[in-house]
């Protein structure tokens, strides 16, 4: 029998604390669309996405009506498109990018991920074609999101791929200069990319996944923040382990709501349920910020010494609560720190409290990496490569996912403001220390060998 206080607690989370399901992501394997004729491939993938995802949005809207929980984003993640490009050339990648964009629009999905290449151990012709097409694809399509995996704990870091992608990021930004380099916000460079991530821009359907699958990303930074505030109001002398316990219990409830929606969506679509991603994903709205959680814990200036410990505490407690809540936890499952998408983090960067170096330290203990960070437009490719290599080193060495999503904004310099609007938020161009201080190291290329941890067998 439900208790009154449980009902009211859940209702408060839903109505006042921004508890929602951040993304219901439908994974679709497109490998059976392969053909010698690229136009046949494009037709086949349009048809398959249209058929499998036809009811995705309607089902999600019906679930929102039934359960009273908002499903913010309905999205699609497809198997890596680079596999469909093998044996093709010319405009093949652009053609498939356009086909994905149109297919997503036809089923009323705002973003589609999987314009992806997994190059952590080497680059095939199809993967190179995909990476080289990114400036055109990401600047001319609206919904297509791309990702490139450049390292794993088992393979090490493919520095040649990092250099290629870094130069490509500058070309993407230049190609989308009219939208302040926004195209680069749709590309994530991963180390240890998860195959079941429901969050954009890095979602794709991995090689080990089913033909179709429903993965769900929950959210709830506002819920966690309010739980901490209530705890401190009730017991002002609470210690950090008390706060960790509060976060853990809150994460449990948030995760359960996510699994309920995931299973219901999967049942109604006749598609297997995959995973629930526990990640606390902020939006630019006040009250929906991960940075505000750290502030509620007592970090008054985000970036101050102690911030990394607060991130570690939060990330660990979220995982512990989520792991008990569901046996199907996957994806990234941590606390995101996407600077532009979180007003508290963005504010800390603009005040100079939160630096790139501190963000990098924070990413060692949370998911995912240097995310949604604005760089000066004249940042050298080698500097971007250095940022990617540093993040990849953290991920590969610690056997965790890390990623980089940076936007070099054409014509902008350190301290300038940029506003992408909507969920992508606004921010200040970050300062890069010693931007040309490691170029000789980075230009050597090759591969950084796998760490000893990768030889675990």
């Amino acid at each position, binding site marked *: 029998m*439900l208790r*009154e206080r*449980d*009902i*009211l607690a*859940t209702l408060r*989370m839903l109505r006042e604390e921004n508890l929602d399901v951040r993304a219901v992501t439908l994974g679709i394997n497109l490998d059976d669309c392969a053909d010698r004729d690229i136009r046949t491939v494009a037709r086949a993938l349009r048809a398959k996405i249209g058929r499998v995802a036809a009811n995705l949005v309607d089902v999600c809207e019906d679930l929102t009506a039934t359960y*009273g929980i908002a499903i913010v984003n309905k999205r699609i993640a497809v198997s890596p498109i680079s596999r469909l490009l093998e044996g093709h050339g010319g405009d093949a990648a652009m053609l498939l990018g356009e086909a994905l964009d149109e297919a997503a629009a036809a089923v009323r999905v705002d973003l589609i991920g999987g314009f992806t290449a997994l190059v952590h151990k080497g680059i095939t012709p199809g993967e190179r074609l995909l990476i080289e097409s990114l400036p055109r694809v990401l600047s001319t399509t609206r919904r297509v999101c791309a990702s490139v995996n450049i390292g794993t704990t088992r393979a090490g870091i493919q520095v040649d791929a990092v250099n290629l992608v870094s130069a490509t990021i500058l070309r993407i930004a230049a190609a989308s200069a009219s939208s302040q380099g926004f195209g680069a916000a749709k590309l994530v460079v991963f180390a240890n990319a998860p195959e079941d991530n429901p969050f954009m821009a890095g979602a794709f359907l991995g090689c080990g996944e089913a033909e179709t699958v429903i993965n769900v990303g929950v959210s709830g930074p506002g819920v966690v923040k309010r739980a901490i505030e209530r705890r401190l109001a009730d017991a002002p002398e609470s210690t950090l382990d008390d706060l960790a316990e509060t976060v853990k219990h809150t994460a449990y409830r948030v995760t359960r*709501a996510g699994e*309920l929606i995931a299973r219901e969506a999967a049942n109604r679509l006749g598609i297997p349920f995959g995973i629930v991603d526990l990640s606390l994903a902020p939006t630019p709205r006040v009250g929906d910020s991960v940075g505000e959680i750290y502030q509620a814990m007592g970090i008054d200036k985000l970036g101050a010494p102690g911030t990394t410990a607060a991130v570690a505490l939060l990330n660990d407690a979220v995982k512990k609560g989520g792991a008990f809540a569901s046996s199907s936890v996957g994806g990234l499952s941590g606390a995101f720190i996407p600077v532009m998408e979180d007003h508290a983090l963005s504010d800390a960067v603009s005040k100079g409290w939160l630096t790139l170096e501190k963000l990098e330290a924070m990413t060692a203990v949370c998911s995912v990496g240097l995310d949604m960070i604005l760089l000066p437009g004249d940042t050298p490719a080698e500097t971007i490569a250095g940022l990617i290599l540093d993040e990849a080193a953290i991920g590969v060495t610690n056997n965790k996912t890390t990623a980089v999503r940076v936007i070099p904004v054409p014509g902008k310099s350190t301290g300038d403001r940029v506003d992408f609007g909507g969920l992508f938020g606004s921010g200040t161009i970050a300062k890069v220390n010693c931007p040309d201080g490691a170029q000789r190291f980075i230009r050597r290329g090759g591969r950084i060998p796998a760490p000893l941890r990768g030889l675990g067998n």
Partner: protein
Amino acid sequence: MEKEVKFVMSILVADHPGIMCAITSAITDQGGNINGIRQTVVEGYFSIILTATFAAAASAEALHAAVTANFPPGEAAIVVRPYAPVAPDGAITGGTTYILVIAGPDRPGILRAATGCLARHGVNIEDWSYHFDGPQVTYIGVLTVPRDVAVAAMREALGATLSPLGITCSLQHENIFRATSEIGPVKSILEGRYAT
């Protein structure tokens, strides 16, 4: 096997310790076995509804007299009726459980408005509770909604009925509350099983 009779009984009495013992003792002394029971206290008044099975010779009058005898004269209002196993015409025999929460400043007419809307949609109220916080009142209703009722339209009708009274309402499938409050697997909740 000996034939049995079943009665449904309700009792209203000013609350004090020992009421449940007085009622269940009378039933046991009459050879009865309690099958279903629900009890609550509102504003100092104890109320209970229960069903119990007796040997065929038992009568509603005898049971009424036995329970009455365990209270001071005139203290308890007691109703005993033969149990009718078949639901009367119009009763819901199947449906989906929803939770209705309505809240706002207390004033006359809130419940009439809300329950009138529910009745027009054929919704059965299974349980109803309240909570006051100063002048603010919150009502929580557990509802059985017939499967052919358009929930979105009913939610809209409730909102249209209650918002002129300054009252907010939410209507959600019970599983969102069960999933976030219970520890059993979500899969079990969706399959209609209760956590062990």
